């Protein structure tokens, strides 16, 4: 069959049509983004998971943006890895039957959850953190999604969020085919960021604005800017502060309003600087630093909005490119609070301070992993579980004080575990930590095999950088010759 006929048969949803060795089954949707069918691979080519094929809406009468978007997705999706994007199995470009064959993501489309909004607080935080994790993974691969909305998110059964539809995406190391297609490079009206409306692409913070709109919708049951039908209506968000979530839903806690409104800041510098920081705040509500944003119960008055409107029209501001995201690294320091006088403590603090000395919105997590009671812990630390915990927390706070970190960027964690290395690795992974600072085995432990130490376990297991600190003047461990 000629490729045009094949494409026509495919788009018409003719079951049994074979494209690139895959047999079309049930059609799952049809929309601006194209057509999605379940497909079965040829015998012997089964990848071990269910598959779908995506075909762009091409042909007479179809808008060109569908084709360019499909081309962009064809470039970007195969370059992405990890659990937060569908796995790509096969593809064909625009000279034949353009198609993408990918994993059918088993799970619940977020669209279905949105219908039940407003959702319970814990669920909003859980879904929001999962989506922030997915964004962090994609952003770390230098890709901005640019069309984050419930239709493009699927929650796997284990709670992991998967992003689909990369037709508006921007890859920092690939040509941006949508660079000059301002008319339609803007994403979806209720979620699109103000800078995207100005034609700026490639800033990961744009996805955080969309995440804010999504969180607002999940928590409040309404969209922050409604569903604007016109470009002028969309451009409201260049200056207008949306009604605070608590004005619609008074029982919403201030910390969640803080997170949502910080995502929705029109000004890129006032917004969160990375998805990892949003995920962290959604998982650690007690650590969220509250600003006046958290307390707002009404939308700003007419005068304040007018001032913002005037400011947003400033030609100098409109012409200027927004500054790049401030570095926002998460640094995790493992502090042994069971041995507060250990000679390694000042050295660890010195290196932690070095890592923090560059400008940026760095965050420090101080973690003390304490062994379960009865494992060499003296009775001096109190008899009860909570007493022990508080005692370690106090020591941790005391340890961190000289760092001089503002409270909103410092968090203290006392964790009980029999396997400190595994616990530290897990914490680092879950919190998108960029650097772990921890002590080398103490001189007294040097007789132990290195591979049995916490430092070696974390170094081997972590996916980030690890700095292993020794106290100055420590005796040489090499055997005397």
């Amino acid at each position: 069959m000629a490729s045009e006929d094949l494409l026509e048969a495919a788009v018409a949803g003719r079951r049994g049509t074979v494209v690139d060795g895959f047999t079309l089954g049930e059609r799952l949707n049809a929309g601006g983004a194209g057509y999605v069918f379940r497909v079965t691979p040829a015998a012997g080519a089964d990848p071990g998971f269910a598959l779908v094929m995506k075909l762009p809406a091409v042909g007479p009468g179809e808008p060109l943006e569908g084709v360019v978007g499909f081309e962009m997705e064809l470039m970007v999706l195969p370059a992405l890895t990890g659990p937060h994007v569908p796995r790509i199995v096969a593809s064909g470009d625009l000279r034949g039957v353009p198609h993408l064959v990918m994993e059918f993501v088993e799970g619940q489309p977020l669209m279905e959850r949105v219908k039940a909004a407003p959702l319970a607080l814990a669920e909003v935080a859980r879904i929001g953190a999962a989506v922030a994790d997915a964004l962090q993974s994609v952003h770390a691969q230098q890709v901005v999604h640019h069309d984050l909305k419930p239709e493009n998110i699927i929650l796997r059964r284990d709670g992991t969020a998967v992003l689909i539809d990369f037709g508006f995406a921007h890859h920092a190391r690939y040509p941006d085919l949508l660079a000059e297609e301002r008319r339609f490079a803007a994403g979806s009206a209720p979620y699109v960021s103000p800078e995207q409306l100005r034609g700026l692409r490639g800033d990961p913070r744009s996805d955080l604005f969309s995440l804010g709109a999504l969180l607002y919708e999940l928590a409040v049951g309404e969209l922050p800017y409604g569903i604007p039908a016109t470009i002028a209506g969309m451009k409201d968000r260049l200056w207008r502060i949306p009604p605070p979530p608590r004005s619609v839903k008074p029982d919403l806690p201030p910390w969640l309003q803080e997170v949502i409104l910080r995502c929705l800041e029109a000004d890129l510098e006032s917004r969160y600087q990375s998805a990892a920081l949003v995920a962290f705040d959604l998982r650690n509500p007690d650590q969220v630093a509250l600003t006046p944003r958290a307390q707002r119960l009404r939308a700003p008055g007419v005068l304040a909005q007018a001032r913002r409107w005037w400011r947003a029209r400033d030609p100098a501001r409109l012409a200027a490119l927004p500054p790049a995201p401030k570095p926002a690294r998460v640094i995790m320091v493992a502090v042994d609070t069971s041995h507060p006088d250990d000679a390694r403590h000042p050295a660890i603090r010195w290196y932690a301070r070095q890592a923090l000395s560059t400008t940026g919105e760095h965050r420090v997590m101080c973690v003390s992993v304490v062994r379960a009671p009865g494992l060499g812990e003296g009775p001096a630390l109190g008899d009860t579980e909570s007493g022990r915990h508080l005692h370690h927390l106090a020591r941790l706070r005391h340890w961190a004080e000289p760092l001089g970190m503002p409270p909103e960027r410092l968090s203290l964690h006392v964790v009980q575990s029999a396997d400190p290395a595994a616990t530290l690795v897990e914490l680092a992974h879950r919190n998108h930590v960029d650097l772990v600072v921890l002590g080398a085995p103490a001189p007294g432990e040097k007789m132990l095999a290195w591979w049995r130490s916490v430092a070696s376990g974390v170094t081997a297991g972590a996916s980030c950088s690890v700095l292993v600190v020794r106290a100055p003047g420590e005796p040489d461990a090499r055997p005397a010759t």
Partner: protein
Amino acid sequence: MPCQSMHNGFVLALLADIHGNLEALQACLAHARAAGARRYALLGDVVGYGADPAGVVDVAMGLAAGGAVVVKGNHDAAVGGDAGYLNHAASEAIAWTRTALSDAHRGFLAALPLERRDADAAYAHASLHQPARWEYIDGPAAAYRCMDAAAMPYAFCGHIHDPQLFFESGPGRAVAFRPTPGTEIPVPRHRRWVAIPGSVGQPRDGDTRAAYALVDFARERITFHRVAYDHLGVADKMERVGLPAALVHRMRRGV
């Protein structure tokens, strides 16, 4: 999977603006061979500026005998004729280059074509649009003129010393893209592209490493590379043979 190419699957190395820098050329060729290159295209300005014109032309003649594409650059043309439109340092270097080349070398350069075409692409030193005018592809408009004149999916040029990739974004429009070294970039054949690999022998973007690119026609990918070599040794050699100080400085700093 992408449609099977009707072309042979060999990877092509694009080498532009070698400018008599033998060490840079050898470093790029070694890098390209290790990366699987079996075909070569020399995109003009084989000589000029550098201290080893004879050595570089020898390599070019060897590659050409093996089937490589070699097109003529404005410095190659200047060796056999009027160098009046080159700046002072460049024409001084050309005068020296003439004395360093044999008749066979000069004959090879004089016989080079201004443009070449094969089943895969069109090649010229400056632009496929009126190649004898040495137009700089310094923006999307010039790039569009080049891709239009090429009338093929791929046009490969040099002349501007900075690595650039231009793509057709709509009727009469092209968009510029600055590639990241080492990134394999999809360049699907249903669009038109102009790739400028950057200069092997005299980079000017502040990065002293030699620039070149690899094209995988079967997979429709292009990768721009930067290769470190002893550029300071090359600058010393230029100084020893008496090439202008401005050119030596440029070599040391990559500016």
